[in-house]
């Protein structure tokens, strides 16, 4: 036990003072009675009935001395040391992911985590520097190296659980970097997602009661001739097989309801047929309350997209023709170099081996093998260059760069562009937004490569089209909470707004280029409105909770079991918060004073 305010022991001086006061108080007031005859009997009787009566007067004094002693100890702020409590710096990481909204521990796991963290902060040695980190989709340092407990507790109380996943990887790297700077830092994690940092003993206050939970983990739809078919996946994260009542809502109205049999630990897929196509929102609901209610709903938006029109300007390129035709939602037109007066009214222009001086301004641009032009600089030409993977989005899903380029032009990346394909000798491709148009330029003629002969060609083209065609529907229909969305709005769009499920309207453009939209904490239907000369255009997308990652409330149990089995160096260990004994001593004082009062009033 240590005392944070040992100066309080000066208060021990009160004990001799109490004794002196008692000695002074012993002088009783004289009172003459006719005879002590009866009083002697009284005193004899009292002493016979309560043998400690002789001590009574002293008992009051002893109780007061005890109370004074307890008060002095309480003022000295006694504290039972926890392991590591001597650390000068403590990192407190608080899990704010969706699973911490589960109420299987009575209150929500998040509230429990907060109260445990509060207790830890309260019990820290004064002067200890605390870094408070919230771990949700993003990892945020809420308070850095603060020894002000008041402000820490204030920050802590303001934290709220999110609907997103916990990004433990980011948290691990952030904490690891702090640890490098401050040796001997104590790391304490509150929540249900452990954080492992090699070489560091992380204390983990694991909060879970393995609550039973059901979740809608899959939600998608497909348009068929007979309307829309909806697929919902219902997962059972409990210890027993269950019949789960599920309802399907279409634009807020009940469409159908079923009981879905789901075996424990499994997911049952349910198909709902015959949903009319002229709708915008499908919602699946599990109609029972469980440990986590947020994942009992899932949304899916239905967009009746217009067909995009793309114009391929070429002397003849069968590869691009074929692959663009594969891309759903795109109607491809082809023309020669000479018909420049037709180059308007398309969403996308693909220039193959040509780039006119007057570039169309009503659509995005894709260029292969550009000649010298006014838009960007062409530096020269190389043969059989070595290609470097920059991890760009257009090479997403491409495994290994097993294609070759025979001859390509070297491009100078303009200020508005970014390099997407680098060679040893320079840039072979770049992309960027120029005058509100998306522009993607490849320095090579597709015929001078073996790309069309490899399986990656349609993938690269599809990725490119995703970026080039406005509101590319593939990646924005289903978003998880707190994920940022980069919209690909039309070049003619003058203003763009997002309407959130709660009806709030957020302007995302102007300014251009538009920033990533990240106010996606609320699950439900979002509407993107684009205003242009041609009128208003709406696009729907939904935000869902990351139920596949967060709904299994029992996954933590595995973490615990692992701990018992492995007991490895990096295994999170339980949090030892230590104990501030001041409150206990204050209670003891109260009890002692009550006893004293009782002795004074009842026991003679």
């Amino acid at each position, binding site marked *: 036990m240590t005392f944070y305010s040992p100066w309080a022991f000066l208060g021990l001086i009160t004990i001799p003072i109490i004794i002196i006061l008692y000695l002074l*108080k*012993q002088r*009783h*007031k*004289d*009172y*003459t*009675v*006719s*005879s*002590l*005859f*009866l*009083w*002697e*009997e*009284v*005193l004899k*009787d*009292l002493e016979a*009935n309560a043998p400690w009566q002789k001590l*009574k*007067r002293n008992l009051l004094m002893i109780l007061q001395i005890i109370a004074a002693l307890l008060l002095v100890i309480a003022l000295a702020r006694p504290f039972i040391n926890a392991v590591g409590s001597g650390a000068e710096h403590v990192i407190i990481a608080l899990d704010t992911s969706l699973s911490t909204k589960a109420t299987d521990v009575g209150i929500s796991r998040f509230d429990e985590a907060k109260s445990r963290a509060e207790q830890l902060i309260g019990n820290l040695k004064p002067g200890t520097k605390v870094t408070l980190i919230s771990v949700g989709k993003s990892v945020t340092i809420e308070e850095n190296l603060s020894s002000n407990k008041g402000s820490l507790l204030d920050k802590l109380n303001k934290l709220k659980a999110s609907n997103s996943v916990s990004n433990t990887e980011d948290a691990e790297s952030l904490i690891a970097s702090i640890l490098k700077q401050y040796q001997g830092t104590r790391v304490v994690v509150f929540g249900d997602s452990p954080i492992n940092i090699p070489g560091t003993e992380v204390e983990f206050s694991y909060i879970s009661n393995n609550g039973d939970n059901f979740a809608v983990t899959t939600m998608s739809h497909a348009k068929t001739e007979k309307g829309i078919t909806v697929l919902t996946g219902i997962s059972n994260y409990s210890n027993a097989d269950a019949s789960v009542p599920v309802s399907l809502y279409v634009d807020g109205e009940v469409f159908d309801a079923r009981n879905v049999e789901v075996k424990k630990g499994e997911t049952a897929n349910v198909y709902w047929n015959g949903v009319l196509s002229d709708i915008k929102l499908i919602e699946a609901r599990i109609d029972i309350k469980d440990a986590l209610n947020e994942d009992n709903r899932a949304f899916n938006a239905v967009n009746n997209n217009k067909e995009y029109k793309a114009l391929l300007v070429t002397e003849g390129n069968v590869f691009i023709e074929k692959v663009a035709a594969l891309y759903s939602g795109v109607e491809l037109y082809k023309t020669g170099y000479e018909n420049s007066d037709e180059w308007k009214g398309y969403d996308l222009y693909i220039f193959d081996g040509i780039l006119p001086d007057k570039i169309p301004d009503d659509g995005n641009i894709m260029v292969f093998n550009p000649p010298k032009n006014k838009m960007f600089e062409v530096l020269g030409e190389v043969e059989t260059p070595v290609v470097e993977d920059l991890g760009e989005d257009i090479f997403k899903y491409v495994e290994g760069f097993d294609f070759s380029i025979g001859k390509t032009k070297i491009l100078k990346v303009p200020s508005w562009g970014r390099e997407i394909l680098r060679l040893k000798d320079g840039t072979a491709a770049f992309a960027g937004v120029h005058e509100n148009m998306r522009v993607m330029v490849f320095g090579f003629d597709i015929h001078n490569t073996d790309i069309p002969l490899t399986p990656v060609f349609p993938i690269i083209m599809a990725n490119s089209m995703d970026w080039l065609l406005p509101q590319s529907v593939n990646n924005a229909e289903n978003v998880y909470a707190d994920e940022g969305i980069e919209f690909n709005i039309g070049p003619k769009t003058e203003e763009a707004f997002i309407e959130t499920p709660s009806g709030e309207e957020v302007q995302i453009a102007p300014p251009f280029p538009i920033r990533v939209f990240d106010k996606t904490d609320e699950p439900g239907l979002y509407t993107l409105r684009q205003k242009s000369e041609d009128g208003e255009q709406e696009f729907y997308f939904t935000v869902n909770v990351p139920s596949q990652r967060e709904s299994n409330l029992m996954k933590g149990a595995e973490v615990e079991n692992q701990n018992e089995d492995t007991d490895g160096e990096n295994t999170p260990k339980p949090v030892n918060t230590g104990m501030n004994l001041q409150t206990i001593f204050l209670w003891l004082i109260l009890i002692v004073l009550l006893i004293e009062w009782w002795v*004074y*009033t*009842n*026991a*003679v």
Partner: protein
Amino acid sequence: MKSELFDSDFLRKLEQLVITSKITLAAGASGNRKSRAKGSSVEFSDYREYSIGDDFKRIDWNAYGRFEKLFIKLFMEEREAPVHIFLDNSKSMDWGEPNKSIASRRLAAALGYISLCSYDRVSLVCLNSIVDKYKSDLRGKNSFSRIQSLLETLDYSGTTDIYNTISKYNFKSGRGISIIISDFFTKGNFLDMINYLQFKKQEIYVCHMLAPEEITPEIGMSLRLIDSETGEFRDVTSSPELIKTYRKVYNSFKTNIEDLCAVRGVNYIFMDTSFPAEKMVRMVVDRV
């Protein structure tokens, strides 16, 4: 001093009260009480034959005319009763509000006066550990001034040892009445005193006189209780438990005396000094 003890109104009231004793006395001067002994009086009782030495005046000459034998007329003789008033004048009796010394002296004076009015022979004995002062064999209302002067000049001092002192008291006459006025705050055997008095053929009246503070003490702090007689002291701290225990001890003390009196056919009269003097006198007179 006189006015403190009695006023004339009170004395007039007292004259109306007469002590009537249940017992008849065996010997003594004529008084206002009936005696079982035969003698010369107005009320005829019986005859007996004359024997030598009898008073000639008592021979019934009418009976002699009829029977030619000498008969003596016997009459129910009426006698004065010897009344002893034992008044405790230890220091403990000079305490309380109203003060026990005043109440007890008034009572003693009143009882003495009433007895004198009834042609009784009154002895007033003031005692503590010894017989302190006394006036004995007082007769007639005129003697009351002697009682008054004794009481008015009475000092309260010394410790109570009333049982022993009474047990050693030398009764000159036979049957009589003994009235004891005391707080009985004394060690010793109450029964010894009763035995002795009953052996001396006394009809006993125990007047147990206490001040209200002795019945229900009111102490509200830590006190050093000092014995008025001995100067000894005990320290106490006031508490409900203390008062409760006092009540218990007090009740047991009073009940003990009362029970002993009841067993031995002794008249027990409890008096609170807050009672009016007439009421106290009446309490005694009504028991006689």
